[in-house]
């Protein structure tokens, strides 16, 4: 389970997202809702250390718009 490389990617379904910025509150290094009221993913491949925080954001998104996709592990 504990992979050395981060090994995952953040994906947002923008059809579901309604820019309520919950994710930004939890993980501001990864998510930002800007003045134009759109959500921007600042870092699509956060570090392994950030994963728990990003998973928290995934589960707290009221629209279930965020998902983490496991990337094929190198080597």
């Amino acid at each position, binding site marked *: 389970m504990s992979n050395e490389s981060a090994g995952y990617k953040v994906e947002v379904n923008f059809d579901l997202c*309604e*820019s*309520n*910025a*919950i994710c*930004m*509150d939890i993980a501001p290094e990864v998510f930002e*809702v800007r*003045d134009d*009221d759109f959500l921007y993913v600042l870092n699509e491949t956060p570090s392994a250390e950030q994963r*728990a925080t990003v*998973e928290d954001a995934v*589960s*707290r998104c*009221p629209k*279930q718009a965020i998902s983490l996709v496991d990337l094929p592990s190198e080597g």
Partner: protein
Amino acid sequence: MSAPVRSLTIVGASLAGLRAAESLRRSEFDGRISLIGAEPHLPYDRPPLSKQFLAGEWDHERISLSAPDKFDALELDLHLGTRATGLDVAERSVTLENGTTVSSDAVLIATGARARKLGVADRPGLHVLRTLDDAIGLEADLAAGPNRVVIVGAGFIGAEVAATARQRGLEVTMIDPAEAPMIRGLGVEIGLVCGEVHREHGVDLRLNVGVSDILGSDRVTGVILDDGSTIECEVVVVGIGAIPNTEWLEGSGLELDNGVVCDQTCLAAPGIAAAGDVARWPNQRFGELMRVEHWDNAIDQGTYAAKRLVAAETPEPFAPIPWFWSDQYDRKIQLAGRTKPGDEMMIVDGSIEERRFAAIFGRDNKLTGVFGMNRPRHVMQFRRLLADEASWDEAIAFGQS
């Protein structure tokens, strides 16, 4: 020092219970987790029940709270479709309706709440909305194209059902004895704005009047109001609040008073915690006993309480800022904080006329809450100020910056 917790029973297989289990597995807890749920269904999400599901847009699969592979990976000892009937606090053992007893090192109570009913006989056409089965029944009645739907109670559930029924092209009357819709959550001023939004969408909104009886014995034919008038309809939806599911705990020795009463770390007894709609605990930040019926709180508290039960050290008290959203028509309503009647109110962005605005609330020179209608970002910004315990003056200055 007590022995480490190696097994946990979670009673209530919905939002708080499932997210609690998930968070434990994420933190590498590999002991047994037993999940007990009265409903036969795998955990599903309730907010869409009054929105996309009731509109006929989303199906059962779409509202699942966990993809099947992710759910299986939790490796739960699952008991669905059977109700817990008792708890032995000292033994931490839970007895089930089907005769099974599940004993663990710790127990998380997450049995939520159920819809309050009117106190009249059940009959076809008369609905409440809390569960998937409720929603399936109501959706079928709406799809049959009734001439009129009457909503009893203009709280959040009632208002959302009104909006969805209007979007389906149905005639809707919504009745509430209060002077404004959603008054308990939003206060009079904002509640009345929301009431106007409903009127603009063609809802016949009747305030300051209650319902005294439901007509029709084989099937609903109408309602009688307090003022003696009657309204003909084929469908009635009752949305008059929720009651915490604590009956199964009577006689257990736990303190039950409008929920399971806990300490500030959500503990109801040694090794027993409660979370979600069923839990009542002293929220230090507000200095009051709180029971919160919001989606976000169920996750936050479920996660917190699970950790509380298995962690070696006692965590900081659970002191969140309540936050919820409600979708009605194309308006997205959000409220963060704890407002009371008589709080000052100030519009900090947009305008009521545009139906797109943010308003803040304050009392004793303290910011107490923020409301947004199609203003999500503002709500989150002020929610952060609430977390920092900003003064009213600071909040106003921020709003003008």
